């Protein structure tokens, strides 16, 4: 079975600057089953943000917000907001390159899930 993409399992994905040195991404999963299946997915680890955004993997933070079925991932910008070759000051379009990422299911399965 083909893996599902972030776009398949979320009804909203957004990105925004979180202060001038960080970017934050919110993945709003479209139902509880998807949220449980993917909230600990290894695919959403620091390596993904290193490969897509050149983020330093040591400065990638991930949070699962059960009340909202949201996985929030924040990473330090490789260059601060407003640098000479800035292309997206408020990071509002950075989420787009995540949409087609194929997700592996949570491993190991979350016992609480």
């Amino acid at each position, binding site marked *: 079975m083909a893996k599902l993409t972030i776009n398949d399992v979320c009804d909203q994905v957004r990105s*925004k*600057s*979180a*202060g*001038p*040195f*960080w970017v*934050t991404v*919110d993945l709003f999963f479209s139902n509880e089953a998807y949220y449980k299946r993917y909230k600990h997915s290894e695919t959403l680890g620091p390596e993904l943000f290193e490969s897509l955004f050149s983020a330093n993997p040591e400065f990638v*933070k991930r*949070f699962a*917000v059960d*009340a*909202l079925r*949201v996985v*929030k991932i*924040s990473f330090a910008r490789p260059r*601060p*907001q*407003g*640098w*000479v*070759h800035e*292309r*997206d000051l408020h990071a509002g*379009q950075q989420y*787009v*390159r995540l949409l087609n990422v194929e997700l592996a299911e949570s491993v190991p399965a979350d016992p609480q899930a």
Partner: protein
Amino acid sequence: MTVRHDEFEIEPLSMENKCTPRSAAAHMLYEVVDPFQLVEPGGILDVSASTYESLSERVTRVRGGQWMPMPYTMKLEGARAGPYQTVMLIGIEDPQVLQNVDEFEMRLKSCLIDRIIASFGVCAAKFSVSLRIYGWNAISGRRRPPSTAAPIEVGVLFVVTAETQELANQMAKACNPYFFHFPVRTDIELPSYAFPFTPAEIARGRVYEFILNHVVSARDGLELTRTEWYQW
């Protein structure tokens, strides 16, 4: 908003708006790194055990936030005024250019850099040229996969960065004819791309890059601030 000792209720002013448990909780996601802990000047607000309860269609009650007092600190952020930029914009619909945008960009960019070095020599030691191809990959700057369909038109933003505004302007002027007429083939006369206005060079001003990111210990919220009183 009604604030009590250990809870608060939010009700929008407009009767058409609603505050739901979801919208109240989602507030902790917006433009912050951490959705559970909010660092404030005199402590940390921890909402990991907060509950959001609907009192009516429009009113939500929030409980369970924990305030952890900390020594008073203030955040100090600052931007540095850096070099100057001048920009130009063209539009391109020529299908021959659009068939291979990446190669066009690479050749054009290297031509413009050569042109600046030839005209300005050593005083051009510190400059940079950046091309942003809107309609292709301007936002990410990343290569498109080879299978990507050609765009139907692109906007090309030229950005030159130099030590002074005057220098950036002159560099843009030196590049102008090459940017405007850069050939995609050599067996016909030079093409002209679509400038939307003239003069084409726009002095954009300085680059302001965030550089300062500190937490300063302070006795209280007024120690680092200055208050001046005016009477009229």
